């Protein structure tokens, strides 16, 4: 166990270093314009630009620049090239919205994903199974941002009704009721694709597990079907779903819900990343990427531990 944690921690740190280095190299190899010119503004003299280039260290070798950037990131003093705002503070400001969106949507998609998968597996081949399969398929095939635009139009902007609020995030501490009300549409939109995907995966898993000998034994000794489903089939079938959920949830927490955040104007971490990318602003992109990768790396360790707990045949590696 201790060896596992040590090995994974070292691996995680290596991956994070590699990720930041990779992002850095993208911005060195791919010419995106000179950052010094952007900082200097429109009416800068060549001498101004030269000074800025020197002050910000853009004339140093790239490994020195990389080291300086990582140093600033670690001390929390990294600032954006364009707006000169502190990157770490900006990410912290976006976190409440991103966390509210992710946790709510995560609960919804996990619950309904499992529900959909189990119902369609129980009724395999019947009409309800077919209907659910079709709906799940449409769910995974929807472009999420388009679904967001369309639901906003029909449910918030008067296409059918203006009942729901039109985007924006209300902090939980300001007004819990409005917080909830404002997040209903983003939660649903973000969850739809995942529900469809999880439902399809779980349906296949449950059907596969139902063919196992131990399930037949359970049936033969007269256990009630509900108990067999809960204690025997689901226990095994849910394991891949846990893995999926851990990684997807980490992705969304880490700013991966860029599209939902942008469409509903939630001012979360993802939207911050999208804006910075449009400005070709390296420090925020670096910050958000590292922040996102951190969640993915940490959650993948959690997932492996949980995996070993749920299925004792598997040892964490």
């Amino acid at each position, binding site marked *: 166990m201790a060896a596992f944690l040590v090995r994974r921690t070292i691996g995680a740190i290596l991956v994070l270093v590699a*990720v930041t280095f990779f992002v850095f190299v993208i*911005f060195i*190899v*791919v010419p995106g*314009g000179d950052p010094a010119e952007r900082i200097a503004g429109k009416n800068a003299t060549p001498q101004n630009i030269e000074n800025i280039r020197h002050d910000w260290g853009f004339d140093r070798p790239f490994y020195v620049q990389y080291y300086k950037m990582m140093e600033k990131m670690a001390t929390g003093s990294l600032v954006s090239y364009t707006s000169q705002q502190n990157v770490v503070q900006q990410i912290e400001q976006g976190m409440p919205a991103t966390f509210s969106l992710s946790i709510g949507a995560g609960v919804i998609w996990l619950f309904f994903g499992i529900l959909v998968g189990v119902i369609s597996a129980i009724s395999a081949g019947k009409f309800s199974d077919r209907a659910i399969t079709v709906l799940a398929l449409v769910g995974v095939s929807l472009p999420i941002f388009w679904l967001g635009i369309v639901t906003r139009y029909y449910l918030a902007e008067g296409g059918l009704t203006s009942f729901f609020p039109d985007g924006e995030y209300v902090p939980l501490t300001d007004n819990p009721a409005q917080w909830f009300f404002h997040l209903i549409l983003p939660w649903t939109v973000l969850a739809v694709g995942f529900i469809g995907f999880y439902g399809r995966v779980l349906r296949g898993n449950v059907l596969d597990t139902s063919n196992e000998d131990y399930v037949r034994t359970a049936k033969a000794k007269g256990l009630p079907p509900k108990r067999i489903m809960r204690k025997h089939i689901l226990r095994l079938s849910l394991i891949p779903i846990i893995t999926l959920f851990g990684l997807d949830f980490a992705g969304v927490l880490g700013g991966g819900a860029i599209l939902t955040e942008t469409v509903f104007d939630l001012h979360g971490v993802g939207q911050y990343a999208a804006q910075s990318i449009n400005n070709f602003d390296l420090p925020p992109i670096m910050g958000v*990427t590292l922040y996102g990768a951190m969640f993915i790396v940490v959650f993948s360790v959690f997932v492996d531990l949980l995996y070993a707990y749920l299925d004792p045949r598997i040892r964490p590696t």
Partner: protein
Amino acid sequence: MAQQATEGEFTLDTAAVLAAGEPASAIRGRSPWYLAWRRLRRNYVAFFFLGLFILICVACLLAPVYAKHVAGTGPNQQHVLENVRVNGKLVPVVSSGGIVNGKLTSAIPIGPTWFSGGGKFVLGADAIGRDVAVRLLYGGRTSLFIGIVSSLICTFFAVILALLAAYYGGWGDFTITRFFDLMYAFPVILLGIALGSALAINGFHHWGINIQSGSIWIPTFVISYVLVAYVGRPLRGQVLSLRQKEFIEASIAQGASPFRVMFIELLPNIMSSVLVFFTLIIATNILLESALSFLGAGVQPPTASWGTQIADGQDLIVTRPWLSLAPGIMIVLTVVALNVFGDGLRDALDPRAKVRIQR
């Protein structure tokens, strides 16, 4: 205790006698591909959706014909100051904004004329007076091109990497799997927009490759690159288990070159998975292309694609919802078609699928 064979009882001997009486019918060997094809042929739903996909492709390929002979305009041609005859009346393509009935209104393009406009502006015009239906078909060409070509590139590299990693093992395998791990640690969409928007500014000019900014090859390469790990990792697992099989050992013992083992022995055995991945990745790529274009990191204006069209229509959604609805519906239809056909293909190619269908 041996049973006595009595008259009228069916024994192996009687079976042999009966078989000898029947005309000999040749037992033909069937390749796994033929068996898969036979299973697929019975799956009418999958075939229907394959037909739908082909229909969409053909319609988009015929975009220039539609544009020239029906709509009489091009995908990027603007008609801001022109009028169009709808039901015999002249209607401005884009109504002039300004003060109307004492209220300040902005310029609004014409809505869908359906069949009353004589083929012009069937789905209306966008904010700068371009024919939405024409752009929809041209946009389909772009989106389908990016989807299919990037899927080809992505599966090609994923297969090569998976074969190399699993065949050589050791350091090669270590490097390639670490590369996959690294790609998994990135949120796909974040990496996509980072690369896409970076390349959109100046294009790519390294290592003898010259791609101008605004070229649709940029989103094609970006999309194929970010998904390589997601195809490569599962394929590597499959090749790795095949690598241990006796037929590979036998082939190496006979002196087969690494190239031969990888591409003649191993590749055909993973070909069915590759085919399924290829189909399903096209669907993913079309979704990814639309998302990147929506965020401004994919296809660059004025080139039409379904994603850019949705983004263009977003500002006018309240007055002219069809600007965004139409390309979205096209994406959903295409992606659903590919997903259903891909599932059918997997059921047909995967022998385990038989168990599932019988249930």
